[in-house]
């Protein structure tokens, strides 16, 4: 999952970045509204965390412009002022949820997970597909009720594919959502992860290769 953080307090931004990376998110951080707008328009994110009190371009205006530019990823607003006026304006501008400072990082993670899931159309933290059940809160996978051990990257690939079922996801898109931007991009690595995942899920095979285009997750998972 690729997350955009727009927060002007350097220390808080650093902590958020560190924490979310630790939780398996790919994180980009912008220190002001203009930078946030640039990132938001340039890259495809799964969610954004935007502070309302931003220099250069205010948080609400940033959200408005992102939405006007047809950026549809879910947005969580952070506010220190805890005024309903701010929350309502933020939600009206196009945000999806709010969190008042100070907050617990676990709370932020939970909200982000919920937003990403919600955007994909899942209400519960557990995404079920055939015999597969992916618990996005605990980052656990069960196949026919039995736990399957996954590495962090295997989990991320599977989660992204399961959140975009039936759609062809290119290797580049997967790389974008799985790695930091300065990471060396090698699509072969993706192939390795997909190969290992298939082995672990065998005989169930929900990940189909679409030649020359990428992968598609299907619920049938026929052999």
């Amino acid at each position, binding site marked *: 999952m690729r997350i955009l953080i727009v927060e002007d*307090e350097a*220390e*808080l931004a650093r*902590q*958020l970045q560190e*924490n979310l990376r630790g939780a398996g998110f790919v994180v980009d951080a912008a220190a002001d509204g203009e930078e946030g707008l640039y990132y938001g328009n340039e890259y495809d994110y799964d969610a954004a965390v935007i502070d309302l*009190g931003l220099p250069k371009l205010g948080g609400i205006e940033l959200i408005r412009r992102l939405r006007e530019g047809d950026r549809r990823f879910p947005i969580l607003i952070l506010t*220190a*002022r*805890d*005024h*309903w*006026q701010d*929350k*309502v304006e933020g*939600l*009206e501008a196009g*945000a*999806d*949820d*709010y969190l*008042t*400072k*100070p*907050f*617990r*990082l676990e709370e932020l993670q939970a909200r982000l997970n*919920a937003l990403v899931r*919600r955007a994909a159309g899942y*209400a519960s933290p557990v995404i079920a597909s055939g015999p597969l059940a992916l618990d996005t809160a605990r980052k656990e996978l069960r196949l026919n009720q039995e736990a399957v051990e996954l590495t962090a990257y295997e989990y991320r690939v599977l989660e992204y594919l399961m959140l975009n079922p039936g759609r062809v996801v290119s290797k580049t898109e997967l790389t974008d959502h799985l790695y930091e931007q300065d990471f060396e991009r090698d699509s072969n690595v993706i192939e390795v992860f997909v190969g290992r995942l298939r082995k672990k899920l065998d005989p169930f095979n929900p990940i189909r290769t679409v030649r020359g285009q990428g992968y598609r997750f299907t619920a049938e998972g026929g052999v």
Partner: protein
Amino acid sequence: MKSGIQSRLLLTTTLVLGFSLTLAGLVLERSFRMSTLSGAEEQLRLVIYSLMGAVETAGAAVQVPEPLPEPRLGQAESGLYAWISDSRNRVRWRSPSAVTGDVAAPDAQPLQPGEFRFIEASAGGDGLLHLAYAVIWEDPQATVLTFHVAADWMPFRAAIVSFRRNLFVGLGAVTLLLVLAQVVAVRWALRPLRTMAQEVREMEEGRRRALSTAYPSELRGLAQNLDRFVAHEERSRSRYRKAMEDLAHSLKTPLAVIRNALDRVPAEPRTLLEEQLDRMQSTVTHQLSRASVTGPVIVGRPIDVAAQVQRLLRALQIAYRQRCIEVEVNLPEPCHVRGDERDLMEILGNLLENAFKYTASRVRVSGEIDGRLFVRVEDDGPGIPEAVRQAVLRRGTRADEAQPGQGIGLAVVAELVGLYHGRLRIAQSDLGGACLELELPLTSVGALS
């Protein structure tokens, strides 16, 4: 309740006018009466003089030969009578007009020669004005003759009465006219004050930003000061709010940073630090949300509560989208209260969020206007047990007791509602959860009402 300037002015002028015109009336009436009397006395004196010129004495006989010097003396009951008596008070001659009548001197006291005596009718009791004059007649016996003339009082009294009536009718009309003129003058003079009151009312209702400038010089200073005061109030309110926001930002962000950094601290001091941090955090949150409330405003426009509820509900439905909460709204329209828009939004926002937070699936917002505005926010959540209801609303006094996320909003709401002279009550909803009932005064919550 103090009487108005207008009624004070009118009362004073009416009293003064009434008193002075009554006094003038009495003086005028009295002098008219006196001049009527002395005129009558003068007439009678002339009759006596003409009688004295005409009278003839022959021995004991006293005669006034025809024609009488005053024709009315010859007609019976003409209203003018004369007789002549001697020193022993015997009537020696009687005018034909007095023959049938029973006219006599009201007072038998003999007069000294050369003395006039005038007796008003009121004293005589017979409705006559009476003038007597005694002379020593130039005959050999040097008889003392007393000439009596009497005139009917009625015509004089009629004149006086009619004068008095005219006088009081005239004076009454003058009084009425002056009072009316005074009313007009007072209303005209006080019109700028009424205009000012009207404009202040419009400012309270938010339909006007400042007073107009067309005031007479006596009020211009006051109007300018009022404008300056209102502008100052608005400025300091927004400055205060800005300061509070800056304070919130500069306290809460470091708090968030510290909290996050605690994750790397070993468990032994961490628990203690977290505990203390929790206390700090809830105090800061609570006190700042209390402090950012500005309370009733002098200049505020009417705020449509129903519209604000709808706006908040739309926002909350976005944030709580995945919960699929069913919302039912039944508010009277229009329902306006006057106050600070942000304060009202805090009250309603916290109440509605509370319901969204604890509901299982349904939230109901209903209300009515009954002298005041009543808004009920109900949910089908666990509700608030009766035993803790008061504590939930009072928690503001000891902020460190507040559990984050639970009830802290309600204590602030209760305080805010109190500031607006309203009330917040917690009850049981028939949906199964809590029912929070908000009661707010409808119109003016401002200080200038």
